């Protein structure tokens, strides 16, 4: 029995990590593509159709770059830091539930690696350790720019962790559990038969605070001060190159996915469908079939412009997407996969929001960031807890 659990767990970890790495790779692709369209250019489009092979090219590039170690680094810690950053970033995905549990042939399938009673606390614990990767990288590089980047990020992450933690307390009061699955299950149902009972409505203030703090926690514009290239060159990763740099990069995007998942779970009802009516269950099939059609059409159009054979691979991909869409018409498949579809769609919206904001606004100054964290977000979050507590108690 013990061995079966172990094997199943290991298999789950392998699957989740593979999916996660693929997602990270394609979030980078998405970021470059969206940034390109926002900025009136194409983004990657030479490596494979629509630049779809760009992640592979990026990885190979990082792999073949010279791994340069400056002379003045503090050796063991300098090498430890990127591993720490990436490992901690990957660890937090362990408790994220991706879909509803289903029972097939007497066996219950859990769509997560493990369901901890304290899932949310676990995530906070792991992210609170994430600061070490950056702080130690900054310190051990032996460069002033890195040091300042490391110091800034330590201060920033400590400050915003408080806001982040306070922001979700409202959700915890309402749901009465720390288990992420429990929190999502508490959000099932509809008000007036149409408005989903998601915590975004009663906890709108908490959501805004969470969103802002999450931007800061993932070090993205407008809070990307630890790596503000305008001032600190590269910030904490100035002295890192090759795969060590790629590890920081992976960690950053993994964190982005984690906070997007968390926002979905805490405030947007996780894998719940957004509308109560029966026809909603056909939406995934429609969306996927539409996507397949769109992909085929765009690929053929682009082929006419660019005359590159690689675009013929896209209709194949579209075929797979379309098949998955057709599979949704089967009730058993739909029961298993529809929750994952909704979850993935919501996460995608958040990721898009992150990218959108990054390419639209300038960067805060360090003191303004601290001011916002301590004097605005924290009091607002505290007031939110107070009011939520009062309302629940009455």
């Amino acid at each position, binding site marked *: 029995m013990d061995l079966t659990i172990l094997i199943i767990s290991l298999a789950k970890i392998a699957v989740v990590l593979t999916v996660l790495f693929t997602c990270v790779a394609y979030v980078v692709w998405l970021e470059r593509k969206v940034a390109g369209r926002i900025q009136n250019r194409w983004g990657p489009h030479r490596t494979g159709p629509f630049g779809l092979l760009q992640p592979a090219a990026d990885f190979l590039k990082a792999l073949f770059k010279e791994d340069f170690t400056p002379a003045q680094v503090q050796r063991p810690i300098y090498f430890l830091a990127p591993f720490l950053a990436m490992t901690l970033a990957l660890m937090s995905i362990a408790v994220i539930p991706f879909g509803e549990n289903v029972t097939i042939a007497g066996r219950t399938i859990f769509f997560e690696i493990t369901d901890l009673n*304290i899932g949310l*606390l676990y995530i906070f614990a792991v992210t609170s350790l994430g600061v070490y990767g950056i702080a130690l990288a900054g310190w051990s590089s032996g460069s002033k720019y890195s040091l300042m980047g490391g110091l800034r990020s330590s201060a920033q992450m400590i400050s915003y962790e408080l806001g982040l933690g306070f922001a979700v307390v409202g959700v915890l009061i309402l749901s009465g559990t720390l288990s992420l699955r429990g929190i999502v299950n508490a959000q099932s149902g509809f008000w007036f038969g149409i408005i989903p009972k998601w915590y975004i409505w009663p906890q709108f203030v908490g959501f805004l605070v969470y969103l802002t703090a999450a931007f800061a926690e993932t070090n993205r514009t407008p809070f990307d001060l630890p790596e503000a290239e305008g001032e600190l060159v590269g910030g904490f990763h100035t002295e890192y190159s090759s795969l060590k740099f790629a590890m920081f990069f992976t960690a950053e995007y993994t964190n982005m996915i984690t906070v997007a998942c968390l926002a979905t779970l805490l405030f947007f009802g996780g894998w719940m469908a957004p509308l109560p009516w029966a026809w909603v269950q056909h939406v995934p099939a429609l969306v996927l079939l539409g996507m397949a059609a769109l992909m085929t059409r765009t690929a053929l159009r682009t082929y006419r412009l660019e005359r590159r054979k690689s675009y013929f691979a896209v209709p194949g991909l579209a075929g797979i997407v379309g098949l998955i869409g057709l599979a949704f018409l089967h009730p058993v498949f739909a029961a298993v996969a529809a929750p994952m579809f909704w979850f993935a769609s919501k996460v995608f919206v958040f990721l898009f929001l992150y990218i959108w904001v990054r390419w639209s606004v300038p960067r805060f100054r360090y003191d303004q960031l601290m001011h916002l964290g301590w004097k605005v977000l924290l009091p607002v979050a505290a007031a939110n807890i107070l009011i939520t507590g009062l309302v629940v108690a009455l």
Partner: protein
Amino acid sequence: MDKVLFLIFAGIAVGAAANLLRSRHPIHSALSLIGVMGALAVLYLLLGAEFIAAVQVIVYAGAIMVLFVFTIMLLNAGAEVPTSGSMLARYLGIPLLALLLLQLVRLLLGQYPPDQASSFGTFVGPTEKIGRLLFTQYLLPFEVTSVLILVAVMGAVVLAGRKP
């Protein structure tokens, strides 16, 4: 399985603690201390005390030790030069330490005989129960502690704000 995990993490905790004492560089000592905290958290988890484990990591490793590391980085403290030490410590230190440890083991065994020791996973402390106890039975100590921390914070602000 549980025993193996216990031994691994207990070993890590003790090893990291030894390294903490041995290291010459403050950053290495701080990192060892984080290792001790992490290993302890896992031990709590094995006992079933999930909340304590999470708090251990969030508060000690994630906040307090970050401040330690922050301070060390800010002061840019370098490796320390070992002092020659006193004769007393050199010759009596290890025997006295061993004596102390033996005494501790004897006391613990006397109070909690092996057959009464809590086994793995039995020490279940759901978060909800802890919260309820904190805000009912232990409300006074809880509030006093928070006032104490507030006073300490104010003291720190006053001291830091004073112009030299």
